[in-house]
C-alpha cells in the first residue's frame, strides 16, 4: 500500500516528474541562451522561481469571479499530476489499464481548458484576448494530435492500451522507424510546442504583445500552480511521445533510464531549435498551419499506417 502511494507521489509519479520537468525547462532556457551567445540561468533557477512565487502575495482582482479564478490553477495542476502518474507508471513500471490513451487525451485537455476559464474569470481585457487565441489554437492542435494517436493505435493493431502499444514496439521495432511513425513524431512535436505555448505558437501568452495574456492577473501561489503544471507538462508530453512512438528495447533498468533521458534531451533540443529559428506566428497563420498543412499530413499518416508502412 505504502509502496504504491510512494510510486504515485514520489517516484515515478508527481515529484519525479516535477524535478525532471524543471530540469528540462532549464535545459531549454540554457539552450536558448547558448543560441543567442548568452550564458543563461543556473540549473536551479526554475526551483527558485517556483519557490519565490509561493512566498509572494496573491491578489484577487476586484471584478473577478473568485471561485473560478482560484480553482482553475489548482484543477489544471491536478489534471497534469494525474497525466504524469499514468504515463510515468506505464513507462517505468509497465502499469497500464484499458483505454488509458483516451483518459490521457481527456486529461491533457483540462490544463488548457482551465487556463482559458481562469483567464475569462479574471475579467481582464488582455486576458480575454489571450483566452480567445488559446481557444482557436486548441481547436487547431487537438485535431492534429488526435491523428497522431490514431496512427499509434492503428500501428498497434487497434489497441487503446498504452502497454500494448509499447509492448508491440519492444517486440518488433519502434514506431518511428516507418513513414507513418515519423510523420506522427513530427506532428506531435509541433503539438507539444503549441500546448506549452513555446515560441512559434505562443500567441496566447505573448509577453511583448498582450502582456502574458491568459495568466496576466495571476500572482503568487496561484501563478506558481500554473508554473508547476507547465513544468510537469514539460516532462509528461515528451514522455507521451516517447512511449507512443520511440520505445526502444532495453535489457537492464539502467539502460531504460539512459535511453529515456537521451531521447528526452533530444526532443527538448529539437523543440528549442524550432523555438529559436522562428518568430511568433499570428493566430491566423498558426491555425492555417495546423489545419491545412499538418492535419492533411496526419490523414496521410493514418492511411500509410493502415497500409502497414
Amino acid at each position, binding site marked *: 500500500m505504502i509502496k504504491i502511494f510512494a510510486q504515485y507521489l514520489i517516484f515515478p509519479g508527481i515529484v519525479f516528474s516535477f524535478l525532471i520537468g524543471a530540469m528540462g525547462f532549464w535545459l531549454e532556457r540554457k539552450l536558448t541562451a547558448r543560441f*543567442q551567445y548568452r550564458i543563461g*540561468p543556473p540549473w536551479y533557477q526554475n526551483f527558485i522561481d517556483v519557490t519565490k512565487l509561493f512566498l509572494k502575495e496573491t491578489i484577487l482582482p476586484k471584478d473577478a469571479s473568485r471561485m473560478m479564478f482560484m480553482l482553475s490553477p489548482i484543477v489544471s495542476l491536478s489534471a497534469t499530476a494525474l497525466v504524469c502518474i499514468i504515463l510515468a507508471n506505464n513507462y517505468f513500471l509497465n502499469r497500464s489499464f484499458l483505454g488509458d490513451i483516451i483518459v490521457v487525451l481527456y486529461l491533457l485537455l483540462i490544463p488548457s481548458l482551465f487556463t482559458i476559464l481562469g483567464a475569462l474569470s479574471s475579467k481582464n481585457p488582455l486576458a480575454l484576448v489571450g483566452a480567445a487565441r488559446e481557444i482557436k489554437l486548441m481547436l487547431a492542435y487537438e485535431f492534429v494530435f488526435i491523428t497522431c494517436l490514431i496512427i499509434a493505435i492503428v500501428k498497434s493493431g487497434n489497441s487503446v492500451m498504452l502497454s500494448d502499444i509499447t509492448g508491440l514496439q519492444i517486440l518488433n521495432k519502434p514506431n518511428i522507424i516507418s513513414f507513418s511513425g515519423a510523420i506522427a513524431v513530427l506532428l506531435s512535436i509541433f503539438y507539444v510546442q503549441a500546448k506549452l505555448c513555446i515560441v512559434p505558437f505562443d500567441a496566447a501568452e505573448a509577453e511583448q504583445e498582450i502582456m502574458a495574456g491568459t495568466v496576466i492577473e495571476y500572482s503568487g501561489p496561484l501563478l506558481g500552480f500554473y508554473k508547476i503544471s507547465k513544468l510537469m507538462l514539460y516532462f509528461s508530453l515528451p514522455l507521451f511521445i516517447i512511449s507512443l512512438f520511440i520505445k526502444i528495447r532495453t535489457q537492464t533498468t539502467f539502460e531504460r533510464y539512459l535511453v529515456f533521458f537521451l531521447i528526452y534531451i533530444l526532443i527538448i533540443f529539437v523543440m528549442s531549435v524550432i523555438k529559436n529559428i522562428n518568430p511568433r506566428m499570428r493566430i491566423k497563420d498558426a491555425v492555417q498551419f495546423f489545419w491545412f498543412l499538418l492535419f492533411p499530413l496526419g490523414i496521410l499518416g493514418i492511411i500509410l499506417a493502415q497500409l502497414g508502412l
Partner: protein
Amino acid sequence: MKLKEKILTKSLWVYHLSAGSCNNCDIEILDCFTPRFDIERFGIQLVGSIRHADVLLITGAMNKKSAKILKALYEQAPRPLFVAAVGICPCSQNLFKGNYPMLSALDEIVPVDVYIPGCPPRPEAIIAGIAKLINKVTEKNKK
C-alpha cells in the same frame, strides 16, 4: 528568515515602467539582457504583467499623468515589491525640475529602494545597482 530573502533576490522579475522617459534609459535596460551583459544568469527576467513582478523599475521624469499610473501599478503589485529608479530623471528630475507638468520628487509618491543615476546609466551601472539592491535586502535581514 534569511532563506526567504535569498530566494527572493535570486529570481527578480522586473516590470519596466517608462514614466515619460526619452527612451535612452529603456535602451540601456534592454542592453542588460543582451549577450554581453546577460543578467538572466542571475535569474532576472522582464515580465509583461505587474502581477508577476518583484521589481518595479521606473525610468523617466515623473509628470502628473504618469504619477497616477505609477500609483496604480504600485498598488496592483504583489508584495514584497522593490522599486528601482533608473536614470537621473527619476532620481532628481534633472533639468525638468520646476517644469509645469512635474510633480514633486519620486520618493514622495512611492518609496524607492535603489537609485541608479546616469544619463543614461551604463549597463554596468545598472548591474551594480541591482547588486546594491540585493545587498540591501539581505543586509536588512541580518539585523
